[in-house]
């Protein structure tokens, strides 16, 4: 089948994806082969100690290939460069094997690999390098009169050069022809494919369309179901969030009341503490007064005892005085009675005073113990108040988050409803498409 260049151009354009995939495959193969050459060069260097050549030339070739590949990924530049560098690798291998010219066989490997691109022109850089290589040595050997170049192994003659060059040309031409034929065959297939009958094409299109519509229908039904589920869940979620929000409002109110009560308790406690301290001071003053009173009563008791003693002495003196002293004895007896009564009363007062003092001291001790405990209670009340305030702040934040969550949830409900609606639309369209295809 004869295909014109214009047709080829069109086929290439319409089948661009196919050609791109094939080219990328070949680019990779070519790169792997060149990388393998580099590794092979290092391997040879292990035996022949030709590291400078293996790393120097092999490294430069590999670097050039990588750069060309990365810089021109969709161009044929990389392929032409690689083709030329195959030739240079050939020289490297011959040198590394100490002039073993059988390494020329590497030429066939490189040339054959290039057939895969189905572009006969790619053989040209390779042939060009081979031509430069042989021409240079032929020039040195025969034209410059340096027919004594110290080649290894064989006596080089004009025929040898000619034979090698002819071999290169024959192989390159054959491989180029194969590449060309491969290209022609590819275009033949593409053209045949493009000229299938319209009925066959339509049937094929309808078959694919029907399969697609059925698949679309199945998927859209599934999507509708999933969408509905999601919508229900989102609605349920939104309701739950509202309940949570309401509960949180109650909690907030309770916490605020607790905070207020704690504040009031604190104020009362502070006032009470102040009063307690004052009472404690009063009790202490009372104890002190009681002690003073006890001392004074003891003095009265002493005075009464002295008076009694004096009355006794007076009675004795009155008895000595006889009749004249009778009246005085009566007075002395009365005085003595008064003194004894005073002493008895003073003793009673003293007892009462001691009892009062003991009670006051006990009261003082109890107050002293009560005040620090009350201060502790006050501190606890303060902590409760502070904790309530923090709790209130935290709850405010939670409330804000719940409000945001609530808003998003409402939006989700709306979105899911839209998704369900869209899925319904797609499902209907898929049904329509299937019906239309079946009618056709």
């Amino acid at each position: 089948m004869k295909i014109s260049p214009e047709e080829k151009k069109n086929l290439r354009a319409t089948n661009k994806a196919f050609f791109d995939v094939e080219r990328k495959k070949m680019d990779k193969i070519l790169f792997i082969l060149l990388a393998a050459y580099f590794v092979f060069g290092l391997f040879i260097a292990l035996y022949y100690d030709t590291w400078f050549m293996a790393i120097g030339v092999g490294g430069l070739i590999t670097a050039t290939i990588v750069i060309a590949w990365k810089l021109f990924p969709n161009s044929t530049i990389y392929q032409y460069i690689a083709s030329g560098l195959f030739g240079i690798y050939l020289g490297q291998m011959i040198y590394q094997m100490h002039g073993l010219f059988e390494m020329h066989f590497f030429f066939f490997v490189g040339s054959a690999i290039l057939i895969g691109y189905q572009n006969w022109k790619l053989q040209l850089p390779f042939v060009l390098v081979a031509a430069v290589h042989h021409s240079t040595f032929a020039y040195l050997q025969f034209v410059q009169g340096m027919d004594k170049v110290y080649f290894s192994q064989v006596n080089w003659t004009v025929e040898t050069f000619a034979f090698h060059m002819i071999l290169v040309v024959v192989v390159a031409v054959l491989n180029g022809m194969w590449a060309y034929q491969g290209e022609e065959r590819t275009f033949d297939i593409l053209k045949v494919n493009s000229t299938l009958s319209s009925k066959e094409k339509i049937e094929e299109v309808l078959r694919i369309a029907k399969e697609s519509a059925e698949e679309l229908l199945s998927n859209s039904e599934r999507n509708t179901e999933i969408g509905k589920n999601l919508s229900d869940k989102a609605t349920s979620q939104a309701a739950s969030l509202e309940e949570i929000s309401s509960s949180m409002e109650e909690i907030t109110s309770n916490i605020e009341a607790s905070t207020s009560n704690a504040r009031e308790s604190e104020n009362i406690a502070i006032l009470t503490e102040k009063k307690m301290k004052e009472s404690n001071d009063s009790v202490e003053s009372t104890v002190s007064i009681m002690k003073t009173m006890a001392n004074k009563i003891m003095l009265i008791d002493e005075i009464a005892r002295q008076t009694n003693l004096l009355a006794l002495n007076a009675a004795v003196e009155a008895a000595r005085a006889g009749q004249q002293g009778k009246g005085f004895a009566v007075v002395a007896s009365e005085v003595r009675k008064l003194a004894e009564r005073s002493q008895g009363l003073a003793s009673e007062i003293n007892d009462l005073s001691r009892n009062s003092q003991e009670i006051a001291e006990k009261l003082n001790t109890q107050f002293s113990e009560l005040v620090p405990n009350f201060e502790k209670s006050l501190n606890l009340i303060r902590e409760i108040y502070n904790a309530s305030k923090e709790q209130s702040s935290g709850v405010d934040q939670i409330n804000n988050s719940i409000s945001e969550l609530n808003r998003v949830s409402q939006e989700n409900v709306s979105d899911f409803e839209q998704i369900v609606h869209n899925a319904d639309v797609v499902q209907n369209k898929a049904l329509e498409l299937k019906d239309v295809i079946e009618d056709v």
Partner: protein
Amino acid sequence: MKKKIIAFSLFFASTLFVIGYIFWVTEVQFITPTEIPNNYVKVKVMDTINLASVLGASNGKPTFLHYYNPYCPCSKFNYNYYQSLVEKYEKDFNMYLVIREMDSDVLEDIEETITVKTTLIIDKGGKIAKETGVYATPQAVLLNPDHTLYYRGNYNRTRYCTVENSNYAEMAMDSLLMDRPSPDFGYFAETAYGCSLEKEREFYQVLLNIY
């Protein structure tokens, strides 16, 4: 795209130049005849070589002089072949290793390289080379016990000594031991290749600190 192509072209040209340089310094320069010095005086076979003061008494044995330049990759490669000759002929010949100049680098190289018993001669000023008509390395010189020149030339027609029927130096040694006249191997045996005796290290050898 245009800039990319220009930049890559420059890089590619530089790469080709460097690759060409590597081929030249490692191979091509050694496979063409070494340039003959202007003041070179050819010494013919059977001419008397006056080296008794340097070499001492011959003890009735012929003398073998191997010219070695550690800066020359070609000479370095050939050295293993020389060692094989020493092992084979040390009983029949006085074997000498001739070096143009000695410095610490050369000494280090020789200590690493030499594994056979051979006498080292420093040919300062190139007197021995001039006397024997040698201007390149690797080269071999064979002297009769009476200090007349028997053979001066290459070891092989290839630098890698890969063609057995052109092991000229070895063939000449066998010929001398059999009291045959000096053989005439022709152009490939007589015309020197490799490096000159004074050859310094190449740029890349200095750069990479290698011989």
